[in-house]
């Protein structure tokens, strides 16, 4: 058991390191260095060779790639992402409030999405093949097929343009208080929830069907327990495990959803910051946001696997054997 734990931890560290190598290589090694990416052809037309060399020195870009990588990586895992190229602002300062705002929005979405999807998934899974199941299945396919930015804009047209209940664009500073943010997060949250409830409830339906077909549910049935007890006490708790298995995928999907929806509504979060940074070619900001998001997914994946180790007797015995 302990060995399995240590191996799992080491795997996470390895993946974290490989993600860092990839993120750094894709933006600073293969296309040249940060300045090659940052400076546009207009900049190059007005800057002299000496100016560029001086800038390169100031940002330490004249050193070999592996030195720069190590400096960036060792900073990034301990909460220092370096400075922006344009005005040398500290990147962590820049993204800190947007990060918190995205966490708030993501938490609201998750708190509603997962229980709803769990309920829909287990009911349709239990009644599989029925009319309800077929109808809900078709509805969920439609639900996750419609792009987030379409749902968001349709909500804006419905509630802001036609009914005039909300403003179409959010005007809140990124350091707004939690209550201000909650007030404006209603439509963005709803947008992501619609697609994610549809997607997650399909995955959970599949997981629940698998659980209902498994031997221990058969055994519980044969030992004469009531159907109610079989489902509530045996099948439902066990179907949490497939849910944990897909947790990392859920988080990755959620992050992607946040990027889109923050752009649609102008919500002051990390996703909006990312898109603006890409437009300004702020290499270090894009790197930082990507690396931290990936680290978060790796952490979630690790926690989910640890939870599965603790919960699932089959995994527990297989690992200790």
């Amino acid at each position, binding site marked *: 058991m302990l060995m399995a734990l240590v191996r799992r931890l080491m795997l996470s560290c390895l993946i974290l390191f490989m993600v860092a190598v990839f993120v750094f290589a894709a933006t600073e090694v293969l296309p040249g260095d940060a300045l090659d990416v940052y400076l546009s052809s207009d900049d190059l037309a007005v800057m002299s060779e000496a100016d560029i060399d001086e800038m390169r020195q100031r940002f330490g870009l004249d050193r070999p790639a592996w030195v720069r990588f190590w400096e960036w990586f060792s900073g990034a895992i301990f909460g220092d992402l370096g400075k922006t190229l344009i005005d040398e602002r500290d990147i962590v300062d820049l993204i800190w409030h947007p990060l918190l705002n995205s966490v708030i929005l993501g938490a609201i979405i998750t708190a509603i999405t997962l229980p709803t999807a769990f309920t829909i998934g287990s009911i349709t899974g239990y009644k599989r093949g029925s009319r309800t199941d077929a109808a809900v299945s078709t509805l969920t396919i439609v639900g996750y097929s419609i792009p987030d930015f379409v749902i968001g804009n349709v909500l804006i047209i419905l509630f802001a343009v036609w009914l005039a209940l909300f403003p179409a664009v959010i005007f809140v500073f990124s350091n707004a208080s939690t209550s201000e943010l909650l007030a404006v997060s209603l439509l963005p949250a709803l947008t992501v929830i619609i697609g994610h409830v549809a997607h997650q409830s399909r995955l959970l339906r599949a997981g629940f069907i698998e659980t209902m077909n498994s031997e221990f549910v058969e055994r519980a049935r044969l030992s004469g327990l009531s159907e109610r007890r079989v489902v509530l006490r045996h099948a439902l708790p066990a179907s949490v495990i497939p849910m944990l298995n897909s947790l990392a995928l859920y988080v990755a999907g959620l992050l992607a959803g946040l990027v889109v929806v923050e*752009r649609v509504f102008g919500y002051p979060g990390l996703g909006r910051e*990312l898109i603006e940074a890409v437009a300004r070619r702020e290499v270090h900001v894009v790197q930082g946001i990507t690396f931290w998001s990936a680290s978060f*997914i790796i952490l979630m994946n690790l926690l989910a696997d640890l939870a599965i180790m603790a919960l699932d007797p089959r995994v527990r015995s297989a690992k200790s054997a």
Partner: protein
Amino acid sequence: MSEATTWNRIQRSPGTMIGLALVLAHALVAIFAPWIAPYEVTSIVGFPMSPIGTPDFLLGTDNIGRDYLSRLMMGGRTSIFVALVAIAGSVAGASFLAISAAYIGGHYDDIVMRIVDTMLAIPGILFVALIVTGFGRSEAVLIFAIGFSYMPGAIRVIRSHALTIVPLGYVQAARLRGISVFRIFLRELLPNCIEIITVEFALRMSSSILAVSALSFLGLGISPPTPDWGLMIAEAVKTIYAAPMLVLLPSLFISTLVVGLNLASDGLANAIGLDAARGLN
């Protein structure tokens, strides 16, 4: 399973038939758009923001006076093309890596799977944002980035299927007869994975069309003046109060295409007895 029963099952499911009809309609429009679109997509032909039903402009004009119907008809071609090339490359690469990893095993398998784990940790949109920052915004970069971001998921699914085939008698018999790895791959393994590869292709095709249009909407994908639904929506939200229809029409086009693709591929997966839900991400 015979062709007839598969087709019967498809016919019995109204969702699948609606899906196939939507895909067929979109495919026809996308293929013949250059001949049936009434106007040149980039030329200004009328007053800006003419409403639906204006004479000569069936669906009105956009914010600078280009014919909206023509732009809508042409608006799917680029994203469908990008998605098609990206996913074909992605699934082909994934099939090769997945089947060879399952067959060869050992360190090779370990290395492939660790790379898969690494790539799964970076969400698709962030991956593309990273690549676009590094290499600039072009269709080639987009195809490469999307193709790569869909590979790890496909590798996982195809590898776990291939792992069930490798230990089978005929594969081991071929190995013992001394047939080359290359021939075993082509003659024994690939044909037996082709069903799952097809379903992977169909499922990822719809999700990558979604991805391309979302990226275009965000300003990371297809660039103007190419007509594209995602781009058209991004452009039209600036005048959302004055002309909400300019947002709703491209929304309708992109949604019906993806809904159609997903209904059809879900139905096909069910008809050949695979559970479509597990391959989605």
